[in-house]
């Protein structure tokens, strides 16, 4: 009788333990999935910030707006955001609703080189924006755009393969 009780208790305890481990495992898998999702979302919002400042500079220039004083602010914002790009891609997430190419992690050195080039060009953009020379700014905006493209060329899915064109599913 006593031994049966011990066996039962042990059995229940063991079952509880297994369940607990299972739940913990499921929870950690869930956490990882959520972290992956967050990494993708953050990358995209960071790129939108970059695009926003690029568009703002372009809008001031192409419409000749009397807001040239704002150019430096946008350029500084770009330079600051540029430094965040490499951190945003530290976590390797290739599946899901993302246009990030696996080459980012497979060719990490090349990717780093490209993000560095973006940092360099945006830092130059700040200096040029301070001089309020529209021709020089135009030239440096082109150089900055080239730095964007230099990375997008190999590390962002082309538009025809974008997750946005694949019925919303990324995988």
């Amino acid at each position, binding site marked *: 009788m006593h031994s049966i009780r011990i066996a039962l208790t042990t059995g229940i305890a063991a079952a509880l333990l297994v369940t607990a481990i299972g739940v913990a495992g499921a929870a950690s898998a869930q956490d990882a999935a959520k972290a992956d999702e967050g990494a993708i979302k953050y990358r995209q919002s960071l790129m939108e910030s970059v695009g926003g400042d690029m568009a703002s500079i372009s809008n001031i220039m192409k419409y000749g707006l009397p807001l040239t004083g704002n150019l430096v602010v946008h350029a500084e914002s770009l330079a600051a955001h540029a430094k965040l790009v490499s951190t945003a891609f530290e976590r390797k997430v290739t599946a899901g609703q993302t246009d990030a190419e696996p080459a980012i992690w497979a060719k990490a050195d090349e990717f780093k080189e490209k993000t560095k080039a973006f940092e360099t060009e945006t830092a130059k953009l700040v200096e040029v924006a301070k001089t309020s020379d529209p021709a020089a700014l135009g030239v440096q905006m082109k150089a900055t755009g080239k730095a964007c493209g230099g990375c997008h060329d190999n590390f962002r899915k082309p538009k025809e393969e974008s997750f946005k064109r694949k019925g*919303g599913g990324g995988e």
Partner: protein
Amino acid sequence: MKRARSAGIAALTAAIAALLAAASARAGDGAAQRGRAVLEAAGGCTCHSDVKGGGGPLAGGRAMKTPFGVFYSTNITPDPETGIGRWSDSEFVRAMREGLAPDGHAYFPVFPYPSFTGMGDEDVLAMKAYLFSLAPVRRENRPHDAWPPFSWRIAASAWRWMFFEPRRFAPDPARTPEWNRGAYLVEAVAHCGECHTPRTLPGALDRSRWLAGSKDGPEGELAPNLTPDADTGIGLWTKTDIAWFLKTGQLPDGDDTEGLMKEVIEHGYGHLPESDLQAIAAYLHSLPPVRNDALAEHEHGHEHGDESAE
């Protein structure tokens, strides 16, 4: 005395000859300079530059992936053996506007002669003058890798016979000169429709959906809808946005452009005078909007909808 006079005449003759030579060289330069602008309006003829393969500019050999196979562009530098160095003016004009090589065979319509057929004499000849002012590059043309029957030369002739009619651009007197300039550039020289208009099964442009975008652009790229449809086209772009984009490659949302478009802006459209960019924008804004859902990005709402359904 007599000798002095004859020496004087000789000197004068030489001076006149020199002047004439200089004037004709300048006229030649002028045509070449104008031709450079025409070539830039044609997107820099970038398809003839095999950038990835390390071929020289305009020396051909670039692979153009199409639904009919892979076609390789030709050498259009003035090399007499492998390029177009021996072509006469009339041969060049016929190739550009009628799609026929000097030996009479028809080009596959991957070469956009159905657009160039709209070009004026002066522009075509100026383009030739510019090409002939460049350094010749020796590079043999590469045979196409198309699938039969598209690989057969006769197919190109048959296609041309069925779908092509030479037609010079005719300005519409009811429209402004700016619009007509834009129409001439878009329809003929800049040959926008070749990539941005969907094609019918045999590869002819579907003119009922003019510039409505295509999934089968060259090199397998997607060519966006250029009509002013607000959802699937560029209906939300201002004329200033369009002109700026063609000049810089920067999209209104601050993104950059990639692929062939980036190249044709860099070597071509980006050098157009502002008035031409504005003319193109005015023309594009005047087009009837065409919805093309096949190319549309899915709205964010859609994505969330899909997510919650999973």
